């Protein structure tokens, strides 16, 4: 029991700690703002008019401010890649947390939706109260023009009302297109709707202009609840003298605050997109195209000033196929000092990859004999954006690593193996276990050259003591494998890297979280392809 708790904490502790911090910040902000409006003297008259609706709407607005500013940060991919690369700034635990940046973005997005619902409902109640409790004593406080004005008219004729309506509509479009099914099957709808965020932020920053809610500025001269000149209370006149107001109540609307929260992350994100656009404006030169069995094509390319670490991925854009579609592919060879070309392996699955490979490779013609290609091929223009960091970069930072790949998921580990082939020095890594599961035997030909080279190197040089390499038929028995690894690496921290279908990653995750009698801790790192 204690041992499984230890494994669980090692694997899940960091993520849950950040989650609790974030929930705590949201709760604290909500309660602080709520109490400010509930008990603050400067809101006394407004509270009497609007009631709890005012407090709830303002409290949810402050939580929305926080989440709208946080939601952009996990999407600054180049910045996160940079943080991952600088080992001086971040520890391995921090880098492991960066793997969950998309999950954090989704969490902030969901909380924006939930608190928007709360905020809108509370403001609808406020609008009704503005209309019903029209105040004749303090006309400056009113939003309605006369008592009993139709609340729908109030919404449509004030800036906060109209901007709020547009914000809700944009949020509705973004939310409905972000569901799992739409992302999986119609990614373009998701991508184009999500890019409406810039309109959302611009409208958000002008949402508070017009000042619907006002606070009282002269509390000392006019304590709330004091009696005006033509009022008198039922108690003695002496008390009446003390409670007379010095002057009339003065009200002032709030200065819009949202831009303080939001402008920083928004500028950062826009700067990052601009930087990525500039960096990817130079097209790459395609050097070779190789066709492999089982619908895989290898592409070798050249680009000036392109540096990448093993495990990173790039995003391809081919205007000849589709102007606006961008597809991520993991690098299988990184550029080194000796060799400047870098490569990707792409599997032909959807229509973009099909069209792309058609443009790259000649079509096999059945009637002619296959002759070697002598003429220069005219390759399509290709742009790459990246490289971006991924969890698989951490393979070198553990003493012992286990890499599990399913099918085409082997690509990040192929890059790792290439890097190790060039020279196994300067890394913390002492021992690497590599498991590659494929449906068809022919798939192993994708990296046959790499595997043979590794085998030869480990046979010829004494530094590398090869462990046995096995080819087995049937599904691997993960529990036995992990027990074996645990027995030979007692009391060590082993990094498990999985890149494959959900079934494998779920099983491995469960195994990593469960108890180990050998005292080994398995840290689970997952990389998923979309």
């Amino acid at each position, binding site marked *: 029991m204690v041992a499984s708790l230890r494994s669980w904490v090692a694997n899940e502790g960091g993520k849950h700690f950040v989650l609790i911090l974030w929930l705590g910040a949201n709760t604290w902000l909500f309660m602080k703002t709520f109490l400010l409006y509930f008990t603050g003297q400067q809101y006394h008259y407004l509270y009497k008019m609007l009631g709890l609706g005012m407090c709830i709407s303002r409290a949810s607005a402050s939580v929305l401010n926080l989440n709208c500013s946080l939601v952009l940060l996990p999407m600054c991919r180049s910045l996160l890649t940079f943080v991952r690369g600088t080992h001086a700034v971040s520890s391995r635990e921090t880098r492991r947390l960066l793997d969950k940046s998309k999950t954090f973005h989704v969490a902030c997005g969901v909380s924006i939706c939930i608190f928007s619902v709360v905020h809108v*409902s509370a403001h609808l109640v406020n*609008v009704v109260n503005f209309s019903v409790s029209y105040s004749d004593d303090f006309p400056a406080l009113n939003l309605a023009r006369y008592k009993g004005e139709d609340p729908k008219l109030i919404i449509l004729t004030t800036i906060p009302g109209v901007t709020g309506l547009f914000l809700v509509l944009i949020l*509705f479009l973004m939310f*409905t297109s972000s569901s799992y*099914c*739409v992302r*999986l099957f119609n990614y373009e*709808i998701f991508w184009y709707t999500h890019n409406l965020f810039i309109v959302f932020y611009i409208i958000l920053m002008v949402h508070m202009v017009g000042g619907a809610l006002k606070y009282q500025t002269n509390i000392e001269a006019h304590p709330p609840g004091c009696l005006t000149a033509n009022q008198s209370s039922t108690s003695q006149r002496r008390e009446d003298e003390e409670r007379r107001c010095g002057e009339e109540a003065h009200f002032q609307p709030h200065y819009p605050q949202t831009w303080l929260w939001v402008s920083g992350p928004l500028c950062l994100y826009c700067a990052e997109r601009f930087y990525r656009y500039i960096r990817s404006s130079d097209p790459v030169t395609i050097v070779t195209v190789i066709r492999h069995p089982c619908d895989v094509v290898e592409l070798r390319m050249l680009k000036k000033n392109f540096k990448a670490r093993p495990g990173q991925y790039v995003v391809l854009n081919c205007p000849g196929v589709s102007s606006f*579609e961008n597809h991520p592919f993991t690098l299988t060879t990184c550029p080194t000092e000796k060799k400047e070309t870098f490569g990707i392996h792409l599997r032909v699955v959807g229509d*973009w990859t099909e069209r792309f490979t058609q443009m790259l490779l000649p079509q096999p013609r059945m009637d002619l004999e296959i002759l070697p290609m002598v003429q220069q091929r005219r390759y399509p223009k290709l742009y790459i954006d990246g490289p971006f960091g991924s969890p698989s970069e951490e393979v070198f930072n553990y003493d012992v690593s286990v890499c599990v790949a399913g099918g085409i998921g082997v690509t990040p580990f192929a890059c790792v193996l290439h890097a190790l082939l060039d020279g196994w020095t300067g890394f913390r890594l002492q021992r690497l276990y590599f498991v590659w599961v494929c449906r068809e035997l022919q798939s192993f030909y994708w990296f046959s050259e790499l595997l043979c080279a590794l085998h030869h190197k480990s046979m010829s040089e004494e530094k590398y003591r090869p462990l046995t390499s096995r080819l087995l038929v049937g599904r691997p028995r993960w529990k036995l494998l992990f027990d074996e690894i645990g027995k030979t690496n007692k009391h060590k921290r082993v990094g498990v890297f999985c890149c494959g279908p959900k079934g494998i990653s779920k099983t491995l995750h469960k195994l990593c979280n469960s108890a180990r009698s050998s005292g080994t801790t398995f840290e689970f790192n997952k990389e998923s392809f979309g």
Partner: protein
Amino acid sequence: MGKIEWAMWANEQALASGLILLTGGIVGVAGQFRGWQFAAYAIAAGVFVCLLEYPRSKRAKGTSVERTGQYCFTVCVKSFGPLTRNYYVRAFLHAAICVPGGFMLATVLGCVCLGIASIIYLAAAIRGEHWEPIVPRKDTVRPPPADIKNPPQNPPPRPPPETRRKRVEDLEGAAYDNPIPVKD
């Protein structure tokens, strides 16, 4: 690039709008605001829209993912035949349903969202999409063909043993050599 299925997005929007209509209607009736009859209508309309939109359509090409427990809803929706298959009918139906929601403050948002969903359904209908029920695949066990019970009586024809012996002096050439010449 690729065929975008607008109906899938319209379906998500319509389901969400149904829920928003339902919530707005409940708030309107509970608070007994002015015009609460519209809120009561919105509750009924919201429930109807949710039931109609819950079963997802089968994709034209590729795998379809269905919502949990949608089979019974699929059966109900399928029984209306062309009324539910056609997206023009759905577009106009949603446009008609959403109009009364616009008269009350609590249900205005549901009305606008359902209106947007109806526009996207119209776009899907113009592009020729229609609703297909997802039925569970029945893997019928095919009976094996009749002649599988009778194995062949004689071995296959083979060349005489002399030509069958392996040519050890030229293994590479032997691999490509046919013991019996192949006639063109």
